[in-house]
C-alpha cells in the first residue's frame, strides 16, 4: 500500500462545522447571488454543497429564495448533475476509483470490501454520518491502481485485505 495526503495535510481528525456555522457560511456565500436568477444557480449550488457536503431541501429553498427562482427549478438542476448530491456525505468519503486501470486491477473487489465493512452501498452514508462511499471515474493516478481517496488522502496499490485497517484508522480519528 502506498499512501499520500494530497496537499501535504491529512484530513484525519479535522474538526467539522456546526449546523449554525454552516448556516452562517451559506448566508455569506449567498449574499453575492442576491436576485441573480437562473444564471447564478450552478455556482450558488456549488458553494452551498461545499459547505454542507450535500444539498438538502432547506438549502435548496434558501438558494431558490436568494436567486428568486422556484424550488422545483433548483431541484431540477440538482437532480440533473451527478456532481450534486441529495444525500449527506460522511465525515470521511471513500471515493473508489472505477476507472479502467483501477478496474482491471480489481477495484470492484476493493469497493465490495469497503461496502461490506461499512455495511452501506456506494452512494450511501452510515447512520452516524461518519462514512460514505462513492464510486468515481479515473482520478489520474493509474500508476497506483487500484486507488481510493479518503477525503484528500490517497491510497494506492491496494488489496482488499488492507481495507479494514484503513477504515479502522478513520474510525479512531
Amino acid at each position, binding site marked *: 500500500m502506498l499512501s499520500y495526503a494530497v496537499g501535504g495535510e491529512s484530513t484525519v481528525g479535522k474538526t467539522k462545522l456546526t449546523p449554525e456555522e454552516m448556516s452562517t457560511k451559506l448566508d455569506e456565500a449567498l449574499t453575492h447571488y442576491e436576485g441573480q436568477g437562473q444564471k447564478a444557480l450552478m455556482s450558488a449550488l456549488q458553494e452551498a454543497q461545499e459547505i454542507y457536503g450535500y444539498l438538502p*431541501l432547506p438549502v435548496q429553498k434558501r438558494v431558490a429564495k436568494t436567486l428568486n427562482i*422556484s*424550488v*422545483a427549478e433548483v*431541484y431540477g438542476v440538482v*437532480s*440533473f*448533475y451527478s456532481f450534486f448530491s441529495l444525500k449527506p456525505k460522511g465525515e470521511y468519503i471513500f471515493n473508489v476509483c472505477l476507472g479502467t486501470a483501477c478496474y482491471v486491477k480489481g477495484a470492484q473487489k476493493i469497493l465490495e470490501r469497503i461496502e461490506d465493512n461499512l455495511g452501506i452501498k456506494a452512494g450511501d452514508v452510515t447512520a452516524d454520518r461518519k462514512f460514505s462511499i462513492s464510486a468515481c471515474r479515473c482520478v489520474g493516478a493509474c500508476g497506483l491502481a487500484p486507488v481510493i481517496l479518503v477525503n484528500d488522502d490517497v491510497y494506492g496499490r491496494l488489496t482488499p485485505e488492507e481495507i479494514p485497517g484503513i477504515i479502522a484508522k478513520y474510525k479512531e480519528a
Partner: protein
Amino acid sequence: MDKVNLTIDGVKVSVPPQLTVLEAARRAGIKIPTLCYLRGISVSGSCRVCLVEVEKARSLAAACVMPVSEGMVVHTNSPLVRETRKSVLEMMLSDHNRECLTCVRNRNCELQTLADEYAIRDITFKGEKAKSVYDDKSFSIVRDGSKCIKCGRCVAACNKQSIGVLSFLNRGFETSIGPAFDVSMADAPCVYCGQCIVACPVGALFEKEETEDVWAAIADPDKHVVFQTAPAVRAAIGEEFGLPIGTRTTGKMFAAIRRLGADKVYDTNFGADLTIIEEGHELISRIKDGGVLPMITSCSPGWVRFCEFYYPEFIPNLSSCKSPHQMEGAIIKTYYAEKFNIAPEKIFVVSVMPCTSKKTESSREEHRNPQGLRDVDVVLTTREFARMIREAGINFTALPDETPDMDLLGEYTGAGVIFGATGGVMEAALRTVADILEDKDLPDFEYETVRGVAYDVKEAEVEIAGTKHKVAIAHSTAGARKLLDAIKDGSAPNYSFIEIMGCSGGCVCGGGQPIVPSQTLMDIDLRTERAKALYEEDVIMPERKSHKNHDVMKLYKEFLGEPNGHLAHELLHTHYSAKEIYPDNLVSE
C-alpha cells in the same frame, strides 16, 4: 414594415420578418404538425414533430423556432420530412403508456391524433420503459407519468403563471416532470389552477375525477341532489359536443342537469349576486371605517392559494367572503333546507365549475358547518360534467333550452353572469356599490375599461358619489405577482379595490374547462371568444345589477338579516392562513 418573401411547398408567401416558418405556413393555409409548441406559452423546438426541409440548410429545421428569411424555400411534406416525423413519433410512442381506450384523453389527445395522421401501425423501437410516478394524492390534480411525453408544455404553463411548481427532474432516460424532490402535488406549493392540465397534449395531467360520487348520490333515494353551475361553464361546455368555441349553451346546460337526474337545478350566478352584496358592503365598510385597503376579491381559489403561499402579507387585504358557489352551498344547506323541510345532511350539493382549484377549496376545513357538513359536497369540472352527459346518452345539442328551478334560489342577474370573465367581478361590484352609495338606480353601469385581455394588469378610475376611486384588475397569477410587487415597492397608486383571478382571461379559461387542441389555439384568443358568450348573456338579462336579484333580497329579508350581519358572517364568510412552501420536514433524508 418590410416583408419577407419565401416559398413554402411551392406557395409564395410574404410575411412580417419576425414570424417563424410555422406561423408563415399557417398564414398560407399549410398545416405543420406540432406537439411541444403552445402559442404564447411553450416554444422550445424540442419535440421535433414540426421538422421541415429548408433548401440549402444543413439539416431539417424545427418550424416552430425557425425564423423566416428572404428567399427561403421550405418543404413541409417531403418524403424525408414524413419519414423523420414518423420515427420521432414512434420513438415517443415507444416509451408511452398506449392504453388509449381507458385514458381520460381518449379522442382528445394530440399524440393520438398524430399517430393517426402519420399512420403509425407498428412501434419498431422495443425495450425497457422508463419508470414513472402516478400521483393522485391532491384533491385537484392527478399526474400520470406513464403518459408523459416530456414535451414541457405543463412546465412552461406553470412558469407562465410565475409559479414554477413543475420542472424537468433527473436526466436522460430517467427524466420526469414534477415538483421539487418529486413530492406529490398535494405537498407542493401548487395553487391547482390546472393550467398545466389544459396545456398537456396527452393524458399525463388531469383533474381528480369525482363523477362516480355524483352518480352514486343521484342513485341514492335518500339524497337530495342540488346542482349549481358557474357562469363560465355555459360559455364552453358546447365545445365538448362539437359546437363552435364561444357558443352560449345556458338553456341546454340546465336541461342536461335535469336529465342527469338532479333533484334541483340552480345557477352559481345566484351565489355571485349574493357575493356582490356581501363583498360590496364589506368594501363600503372598509372604506368608511378605515379598514385594510385595497380590498382584494376572494372568488378565485387559485388566487387565494397563491396569496396564502406567495404573498401572505396580503391576507388582511383579501375579502373575507367565501366564493360564490361556497356561499350558495351554505345557503342551500340552511335556508333552502329549512324552506323545503329537508334535513341538511340529506342534501348533496354538486358544483359544476370551470376550475380544478375549487375541488381543493370545497374540501377546506373552513368550508364546513359546525356539525362538519361541507357547504359543497363535490366539485365537478366542466369536462367531468360533459363526461356525465355523454355517459347518460344525452344528446346535448338537441336539448331544449330550460331555466334553473325558479322556486327560491333560481334568479340571477347579468352581474352574476360576467363573474366568469376577467374584470367581471369588479364590474358587478361597481354596479352595486355605485347604486348604494349614490342611492339611485344609475343608468350607466357598463364599465368597459375593466374588461378585456389586452393586459394582465388593468387599472381604472371610477367616480362614485363625488369621490374618485382607483381600482385594479389582474388575471393570471403572473399578473397578480406583477400587481402585488408594484404595491409592495410603492410604484402603484392607492387602490381601493382589486379583482384578481388566478387564470388568464378569468374563469372562462380555467383549468377545468374543455381542452382545445394547440393547433386551434394558433388562430384564436380563447379568452376573448368565451368571454363574449358571457357578455352576450349579461345584456339580455332582465336585471343586470346584483342588488336587483329578488331571490337574494328575499333571502336577506326572510333569513340572513343585514348584509355582513351575524348570520351572514357565520355562513358566508371565511378566513385564510399563510402556507409554507415545501416545509423543511417534507423530505426525509
